[in-house]
């Protein structure tokens, strides 16, 4: 399940829905990314997507994660557009029979989203907007899975 949304979403509600009707699942892992405040007024950041491409690419990658970690299910909710400080940007959820695969797949999906998902992030600080590109650290995180 992939959802890109311009509206704020409730990570708890989405996680509860993901956890329901899972008699065969032993483990659900989740990660929530929040928009850090920078002290500027207005939105903390803005995310641009390429409709029809971004959703499909993320979907393709989630399918890869499901196969690689033998997941029973995986879900991603990602905000796009302007996002206020403290709001959830991203929610990743993974379901597996046991915890290790669920944890690892969640980590893997976040590393992918940080540096390879077709999204463009602009952070707003006191000096205006700045486009964010993957850091050396982000790329090193991604390389762990190669």
């Amino acid at each position, binding site marked *: 399940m992939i959802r890109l949304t311009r509206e704020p979403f409730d990570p708890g509600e989405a996680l509860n829905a993901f956890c329901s009707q899972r008699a065969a699942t032993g483990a659900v892992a989740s990660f929530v*990314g929040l928009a850090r405040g920078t002290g500027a007024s207005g939105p903390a950041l803005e*995310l*641009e997507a*390429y409709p*029809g*491409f971004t959703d*499909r690419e993320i979907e393709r990658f989630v399918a890869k994660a499901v196969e690689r970690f033998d997941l029973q299910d995986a879900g991603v909710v*990602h905000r796009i557009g302007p996002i206020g400080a403290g709001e959830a*940007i*991203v929610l990743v959820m993974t379901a597996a029979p046991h915890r290790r695969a669920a944890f690892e797949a969640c980590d893997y999906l*976040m590393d992918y*989203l*940080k*540096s*390879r*998902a*077709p*999204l*463009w*992030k*602009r952070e707003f600080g006191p000096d205006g907007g700045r*486009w*964010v*590109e*993957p850091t050396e650290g*982000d790329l090193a995180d991604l390389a762990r899975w190669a």
Partner: protein
Amino acid sequence: MARVLLFGRLADVAGWREREIDPLPDSLCGLRDLLGRDDPLLAEALAGRGVRAALDKALAAGEASLTGVREVAFMPPMSGG
């Protein structure tokens, strides 16, 4: 004729996000040259590290042909989460 889309900082550098190009050059390389001809900053940005292209919403490998393509997107390094 094709629609050309710019994302992220590429759109900021160019001052536009979407443009119809008619006729469309035969190659991605030709299209980059055309777009950068009157805009050296955009030319430099398009040649920058990590800039990818998508043809009709599929990632392009290297210098793909543009024959029959309706939409070309230039995308700077991606960053979500």
